[in-house]
């Protein structure tokens, strides 16, 4: 073979992958391996379904946050046991929805270090960041009355986590040490019970108003008529935010690890003393929503949202399991289904009214829930990540070979 011919052959081989595949009349590639075809599955529609699910949940939360704002305003202007109870109920309703939104931390709600992230989660719900003593100092100094409070204050002194304390904790003590000025100077004691409750109600209204505004902003960021992040997300691979669809799937997959990192480790493992960090288990002060006593409901909502991403937001929406089945990884989908069923069964088996009581009276049941969550995380990390070639974004940094 002469040199030019060699050159042409080499270039042809090198460029071989840029040729298009054989396509049938309907534009679909025909499988040469004799496999059942991938089922006409469309990755973009799955991403769109994830986005729609997130947006729907955010809209639901925005309504609930608005109701909370109204209820706290009433509780402030008309401080009666009934108005306080109404505000507490509104908080629980909002929290029930937000706990589902916790699983949708991709896009604007996620950290700004992630694709499309705008750090919009923490100002709405900063848990586990909740600084009670600082909040009580704010109550004394009435810092929350400043117009700049929602932007200038620490996130650990606002968000739904602090609203919970303000609405549900009605005792007159504070969590600051005796040497703190509010105690050392007698400022807290001087307020009196009635003034403390009045200020807590006013503070709660400020926080609820801020949360409601931020919830609307989060909706706007996704709304197709406004920020339209939905289009960015569903169009992954055609924009600079998500250079590929794989990046978007990674983002959703990372969000699903909330069930491992936050639910399994922080909400269950640490307070139960199964993970290091709790010297004398159970550590009830580490439980989420300790004043509203809805820690178990929170977990139930987290699991429900995880299931939405796995099985589809509703009966007509695709979920990750559809993608798994489409690529021939049905056994992985079934494994995940089994682990989710185990989690739900373990949750149902926690018979006490609150998670705190379960931790005290039924540690074996709590450990069973922990184990079920652990089994799910293991399948996610091993099988799920392998067959879908998923990477943690941070893990994808650097070279490979």
């Amino acid at each position, binding site marked *: 073979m002469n040199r030019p011919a060699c050159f042409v052959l*080499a270039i042809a081989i090198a460029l071989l992958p840029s040729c298009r595949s054989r396509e049938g009349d309907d534009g679909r590639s025909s499988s040469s391996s004799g496999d059942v075809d991938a089922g006409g599955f469309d990755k973009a529609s799955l991403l769109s379904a994830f986005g729609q699910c997130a947006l729907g949940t955010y809209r639901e939360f925005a309504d609930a946050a608005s109701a909370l704002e109204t209820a706290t305003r009433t509780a402030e202007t008309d401080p009666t046991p009934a108005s306080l109870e109404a505000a507490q109920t509104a908080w629980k309703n909002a929290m029930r929805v937000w706990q589902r939104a916790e699983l949708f931390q991709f896009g604007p709600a996620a950290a700004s270090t992630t694709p499309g992230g705008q750090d919009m989660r923490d100002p709405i719900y900063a848990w586990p960041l909740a600084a009670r003593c600082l909040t009580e100092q704010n109550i004394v100094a009435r810092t929350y009355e400043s117009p700049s409070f929602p932007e200038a204050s620490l996130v650990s002194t606002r968000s739904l986590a602090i609203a919970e304390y303000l609405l549900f904790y009605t005792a007159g003590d504070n969590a600051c040490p005796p040497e703190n000025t509010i105690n050392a100077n007698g400022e807290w004691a001087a307020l009196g019970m009635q003034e403390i409750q009045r200020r807590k109600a006013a503070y709660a209204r400020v926080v609820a108003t801020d949360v409601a505004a931020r919830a609307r902003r989060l909706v706007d960021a996704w709304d197709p008529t406004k920020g339209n992040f939905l289009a960015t997300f569903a169009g992954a691979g055609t924009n600079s935010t998500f250079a590929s669809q794989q990046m978007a799937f990674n983002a959703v997959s990372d969000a699903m690890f909330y069930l491992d990192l936050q639910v399994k480790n922080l909400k269950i493992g640490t307070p139960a003393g199964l993970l290091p960090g709790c010297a004398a288990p159970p550590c009830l002060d580490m439980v989420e929503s300790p004043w509203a006593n809805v820690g178990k409901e929170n977990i139930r909502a987290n699991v429900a949202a995880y299931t939405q991403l796995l099985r589809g937001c509703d009966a007509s929406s695709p979920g990750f399991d559809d993608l798994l089945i489409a690529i021939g990884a049905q056994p992985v989908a079934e494994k995940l289904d089994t682990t989710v069923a185990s989690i739900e069964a373990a949750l149902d088996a926690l018979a006490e009214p609150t998670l705190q009581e379960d931790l005290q009276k039924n540690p074996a049941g709590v450990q069973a829930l922990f184990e079920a969550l652990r089994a799910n995380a293991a399948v996610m990390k091993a099988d799920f990540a392998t067959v879908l070639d998923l990477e943690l974004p941070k893990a994808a940094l*650097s070279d490979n070979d």
Partner: protein
Amino acid sequence: MIERLRRPTDVAALAVFRMVLGAIVLTSAVRMLAHGWVTEFFVRPSYFFKYWGFSWVPVLPYPWMHVLYLVIGICGACFALGLAYRVVAPLTFVLFTWAELADVTNWLNHYYLISLLLLLASFMPLGRAWSLDARIRPSTRLDAFPAWCTYLLRFQVAVVYFHAGLAKLSTDWLIHAQPLVIWLSARTDTPLYGALFDERAVAYVFAWGGFLYDTTIPLWLSIRRTRLPAYLVLIGFHVTVGVLFPIGMFPYVMIGSALVFFEPDWPRKLLRRPSLVPSVSLPAPRTAFVVAGVAFCVVQALVPMRHRLYGGDVSWHEQGMRFAWKVMVREKNASVTYVVSSKRAGRTWYVEPRQYLTDRQEKEFAAQPDLVLQLAHRIRDDFVKDGYDDVEVRADAIASLNGRLSAPMIDPTVDLARVDDGLGKASWILPAPEGAPLRLRPVWRGRVASHSPRH
């Protein structure tokens, strides 16, 4: 034979090779610093995994690893320019290798190759031609390099390709086209190429093409008539792989390294300058030097095959995986939780690796049993420090390899606190799961959704 090795050759090709290798070192150091990877790799982690036998290699505190990479970059530039080469070449080797040995989770095959090439270059007079040294001190300039320099570098590059090819001689790669099916399936939205990956057959073309390419490319590069087309194929291959996968400098390292297969005067021919036919007589290499060279070659030829002594699937047990050119042959993800118990305290704890590791480290370490053992020892030591001196550490570790369903990777009954790492076969690593991977198929983005309600 010795005569052939000491035969004078044109300096041009190896001088260019020196420039390319130095530029690669410089670029690697700049990328590490510019991307913030020095911070990510050496400042953020609180725990570092050590290579067996190299636990003494330190990780310097901030900002000294940054300084180290800065010096590596400067050394790379000096190496390329041929400035103070006799000092710079071994110094570059030592510093670059130090950085690579600092944490196992940073392991990259192509950086190992750079280390080896720097080591070999340290014993070659590559700074005595087409260099600043030669310009500053003309008396040191050489008009010819001994042929053994070229042969040794060719051997090293050929070893890489050949063993990378042998690593692909497996049912996973050739029969199931894994992990290529997984990787290509995830890239069906790649511009131009993406739709092609919807064809399972393409993964097989890549698998067999890659296998044949790796095992035979040194041969085609060695034959004068096939050298140029082979090199063009090599460029096309590495550029394609580089576009598809996040392999950073790998394509450039291999494209640059393969230049050693060309005739020693190829740069002059490229520049249409007359070739120099050196007529100088070069001294014969010392016997010890020849013995060392032969020993190096034997080690490089055999060490990559050491995994055969362990039996089983090296991609699963990973004994013999490193320093063996097993490039891109596995997609393996694992989940590890340590179960720590103290009978005296009557307590059991679950310890998550992320308590010690960064996300990147956790992803890398979980699939490598010897690293799981290392961290188990650290956890044991920490509990002992806290007063639990009877602590037992077990690992609940499952792994999924090349699309197989996950299986236990480490014997959960073994107390890793009492297991020592070593070169012997690790009985605490469970056998690889038998059976074929799942028969995965790609999904193309252009298809219409057909989700049917099932829930």
